[in-house]
């Protein structure tokens, strides 16, 4: 999803607590430390999440001019995941099973053998197929504590919260009716009314 092209779709998050000062050099070091690292086919890791350049999924070392744009800290959230098509995995597994059975001169494999074989076949396929790459624009305005993630999908939102905390040691809270109310300020009377509020319904039977 892009912040610079087409219509905008985004979710807002707010830094919990006071808006911190973000010294550019330190923030950039933290970003580079948590930059995206590609998945390695022979490793167990199934998903990798890290920063990339805003709008450029394959630039993993954004410079200061890329990241600091006026009052914004702009980054790309890159999420790669191995995604082997199920049909291909099943076909390769069938062939591998037949080969192993012929080698061993048996008619059946044990559950453990099947599990190990599936892992081997998956690993071989990971060497052949690239992982699924997705990147989402992220724009943080430290002065107001707002972080805009240019997608509304739940997965990237979760990944952003974790990566942001690891990188900047700051917790994000997703926007919701309650958080907006809290930001607007609630008197004690309103808090009490809020606690007692029941959902409205126009259901005819409820009249």
């Amino acid at each position, binding site marked *: 999803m892009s912040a610079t092209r087409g219509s905008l*779709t985004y979710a807002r998050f707010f830094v919990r607590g006071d808006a911190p000062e973000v010294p550019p050099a330190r923030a950039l070091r933290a970003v580079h430390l948590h930059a995206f690292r590609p998945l390695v086919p022979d490793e167990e890791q199934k998903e990798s999440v890290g920063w990339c350049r805003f709008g450029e999924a394959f630039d993993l070392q954004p410079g200061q001019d890329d990241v600091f744009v006026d009052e914004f800290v702009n980054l790309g959230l890159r999420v790669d995941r191995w995604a082997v098509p199920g049909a291909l995995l099943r076909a390769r597994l069938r062939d591998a099973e037949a080969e192993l059975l012929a080698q061993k001169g048996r008619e059946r494999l044990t559950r453990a053998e099947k599990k190990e074989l599936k892992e081997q076949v998956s690993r071989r396929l990971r060497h052949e197929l690239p992982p699924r790459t997705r990147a989402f624009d992220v724009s943080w305005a430290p002065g107001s504590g707002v972080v805009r993630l240019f997608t509304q999908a739940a997965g990237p939102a979760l990944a952003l919260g974790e990566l942001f905390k690891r990188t900047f040691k700051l917790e994000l809270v997703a926007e919701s009716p309650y958080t907006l109310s809290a930001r607007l300020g609630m008197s004690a009377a309103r808090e009490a009314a809020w606690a007692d*509020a029941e959902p409205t319904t126009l259901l005819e039977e409820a009249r």
Partner: protein
Amino acid sequence: MQLVDRIEKRRFVGRELLLWLWFESEVFDGTRTTKDHGDVGLWLVRELSLSSGKEVTRIQGAAPALGRDAKEALLAGKLPERASFKVSMGEREAELTIKAETLGLSGVRLPTVLDDGDAPAPGELGSTAPTRARRRRTTVEEDADRERDEAALAFQERMSLAREIESLLEGLYAEFLALRLSPRWGSAVVPAMRTWASGGRVDAARYLRAQGPGARGGRGA
């Protein structure tokens, strides 16, 4: 109560916000006055989804809220879960879809910026982009710098417009919340909404009066 519980237990309020925006856009013929943004046009367009539990009614079209389907869904106990609005502020118009439970914005069309997508290609009449002949004289680095500057400028403009819309919505939410958490919600607003959903006429002036003097910062037609 933990923050996460407070957030989850109050998500329904986002649906009521959409209901109220929809209701008042019809009562006040799509025009309202806000304290910080002056006269604003706001009306439903394109898409309206209402739900109750797993039952969902999705209505699409130029004016999705005007048909009986939408009001019947309300009378069946459904409330809006997402709705698209057209917003006009002064000379500018924008379109956006609000997701009730997260207040997330999608499909935000900012005409001032998006018109760039229809801009003439380099060399065409009206284009300000360099022609191929002129491009030859620039280096790859200069091109990259120019592209970066243009992208930064476009981004800033889009963020400025997005923040304007967010500020308007926050203002409307504040107005809604003041009403929602007052006794007037139950005594004046909900009865008027029921009349409206049942096909009855809601008199805008009487509706405002029913909320008492000074109940609203400045709104309505």
